[in-house]
């Protein structure tokens, strides 16, 4: 036992040996970050003091820690990529990264990770960068507590706030992202966690997610983005405790799900979106304990979806609860609370005795003929809705909640 402990402790001690700290700044030993990087050895720490550093493209190719004190500014002069990380185990902390170059050929970023692992990017402020933080073939990196904002008005001129491509085991935690094209962008990223981020007012999606399997996103806020959140072509995705709010517009969704399978959506809140969740080609999805409040459509489920279980959710004050485009229903909707339910509960088991049909006749009409929205809530259409309830003809027969709850769930 002692021998094992000794060997282990040997390993721990081996790393800090020989590590030195280099101070960078006016009147310090080194005045430029580039020179300090050239001078540093693996394991060294660079303390960068306040000032404006215009050093073109900084390439970090050693295992070093770059620590900014009081946010020294790294300026890309609208021409260069500010910081490129090409070595494993690099820490970049406490910098203000501004004005990266904009290019339609290269993906310039404020801070970019190239084919490496174990990088930590923490507590930085990024302003007016093309891409904010970019990871390309990154593994096991942490991107934490950064504030990323851009002020571009056009999608072509703007990159994504946090962009991960072909990465694995990433942890994106507590970042604030404003005004980029997509707040967080994942493509071919696996086994990663997106936790406690705040993504608002981005031009396109708050979170854009493609071909990324076995990922979770938990406790994030996505508000007021051009088109909400899109999750596409992925499986085993877990979405817990997120807020999707005020994503308004023609093609704007709380979440757009396309070709998703074996996933979970639980404990989320969808408030005031034009469409809370839009699903197309989704299969084996569990939706539980979500709250849908004051949306235009709480959900739109296309007939191409199957094996979706919607249970124990609250539907409150939505204009339409569920919209669909066909009569084939391969999903179940049991045990939810619907505020539009008008049934009764004779045996007092808190479950309504007659089924609830969440697809109203008028939502079917509007689906087929969108301008009909102008007649919504008129005397005529409420008559139509009432007759449809007695004799269903247009609405899908099997889309119903057999156990509708009488009281809203406490979520």
């Amino acid at each position, binding site marked *: 036992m002692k021998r094992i402990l000794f060997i282990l402790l040997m390993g721990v001690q081996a790393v800090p040996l020989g590590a030195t700290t280099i101070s960078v700044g006016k009147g310090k030993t080194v005045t430029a970050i580039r020179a300090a990087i050239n001078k540093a050895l693996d394991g060294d720490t660079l303390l960068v003091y306040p000032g404006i550093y215009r050093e073109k493209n900084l390439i970090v190719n050693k295992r070093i820690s770059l620590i900014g004190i009081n946010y020294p500014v790294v300026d890309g002069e609208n021409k260069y990529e500010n910081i490129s990380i090409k070595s494993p185990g690099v820490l970049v902390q406490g910098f203000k990264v501004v004005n990266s170059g904009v290019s339609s050929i290269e993906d310039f970023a404020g801070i970019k990770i190239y084919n490496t692992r174990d990088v930590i990017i923490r507590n930085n402020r990024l302003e007016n960068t093309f891409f904010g933080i970019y990871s390309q073939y990154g593994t096991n990196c942490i991107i934490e507590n950064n504030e990323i904002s851009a002020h571009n008005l056009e999608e072509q001129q703007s990159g994504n706030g946090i962009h991960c491509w072909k990465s694995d085991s990433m942890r994106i935690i507590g970042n604030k992202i404003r005004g980029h094209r997509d707040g967080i962008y994942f493509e071919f990223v696996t086994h990663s966690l997106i936790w406690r981020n705040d993504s608002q007012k981005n031009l396109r999606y708050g979170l854009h997610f493609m071909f990324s399997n076995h990922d979770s996103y938990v406790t994030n806020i996505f508000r007021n983005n051009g088109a909400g959140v899109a999750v596409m072509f992925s499986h085993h995705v877990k979405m817990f405790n997120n807020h999707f709010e005020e994503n*308004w*517009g*023609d093609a*704007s969704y709380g979440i757009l799900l396309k070709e998703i399978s074996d996933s979970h959506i639980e404990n989320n809140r969808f408030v*005031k*979106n*034009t*469409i809370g969740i839009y699903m197309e080609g989704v299969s084996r999805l569990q939706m539980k304990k979500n709250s849908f409040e*004051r*949306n*235009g*459509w709480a959900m739109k489920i296309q007939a191409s979806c199957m094996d979706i279980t919607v249970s124990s959710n609250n539907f*409150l*004050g939505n*204009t*339409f609860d569920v919209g669909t485009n066909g009569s084939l229903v391969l999903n179940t909707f049991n045990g939810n609370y619907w*505020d539009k339910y008008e049934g009764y509960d004779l045996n007092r088991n808190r479950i309504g005795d007659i089924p609830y049909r969440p697809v109203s006749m008028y939502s079917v009409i509007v689906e*087929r*003929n*969108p*301008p*009909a*929205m*102008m*007649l*919504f*809530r*008129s*005397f*005529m*259409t*409420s008559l139509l809705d009432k007759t449809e309830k007695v004799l269903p003809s247009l609405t899908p027969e099997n889309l119903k909640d057999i156990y509708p709850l009488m009281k809203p769930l406490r979520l």
Partner: protein
Amino acid sequence: MKKVIKYVIIDILRNKIMLGYTLFLFILSMSIFSLEDNAAKGLLGLLNIILIIVPLVSLIFSTIYVYNSAEFIELLVSQPLQRKTIWMSLFTGLASSMMLAFLAGAGIPVLIYQPDATGFMMILIGELLSVIFVAIALLAAVKTRDKAKGIGAAILLWLYFSLLFDGFILFLLFQFSDYPIEKIMVGVSMLNPIDLGRILILLKMDISAMMGYTGAIFKDFFGTGTGMSLSFLVLIVWIVLPLALSVRNFKRKDL
């Protein structure tokens, strides 16, 4: 003119039907708001009152009132008063008492339970619809001499504005669904004050859904300052036009 208006208002306020209408509105809206646990559903119930009951009562009551006060009108005509003045004071008296009834009956509960943009828009539209249908009723009453026919015409008008017109629009929508008719529909909605009022309220109430495809067109038009003022202007035209026609008719009418 002031004196005549005063007499008309006093006469209407003494009327038990008016009091009943106010009480009915008040009890209905209070119970709607206190029964529903969420205020949005209460507003929905109130919307139906505004769009159905307010026009109906305005129309029928005003028509009957005009017929019942035929002798009073004859008396006034024999006095040195302009016919226009008589008719205008009749209108002002009716309109202001309908507005008062609506404000007291439905306005107060809304202000208590839902004092936001949607609530204010509802009160505004309710008031305007009250006045519009008084004007339309006066036109119907002055056009027909026979009381039964006049009331029948008023009921038919109500049926037309609240049901038939919408049926007609639904028919149009489906007939021409292959064409881009959204913009035309904005124009068509101007032809019915109830529809126009409903869309204005919807833009406040179901804003999330209205942001969707077609909604966006309505939003782009009715949601902007110009569109909003234009639609209110159209609602005012709906008061002025029937009123002007009825004044012209009354001036020439052989009593």
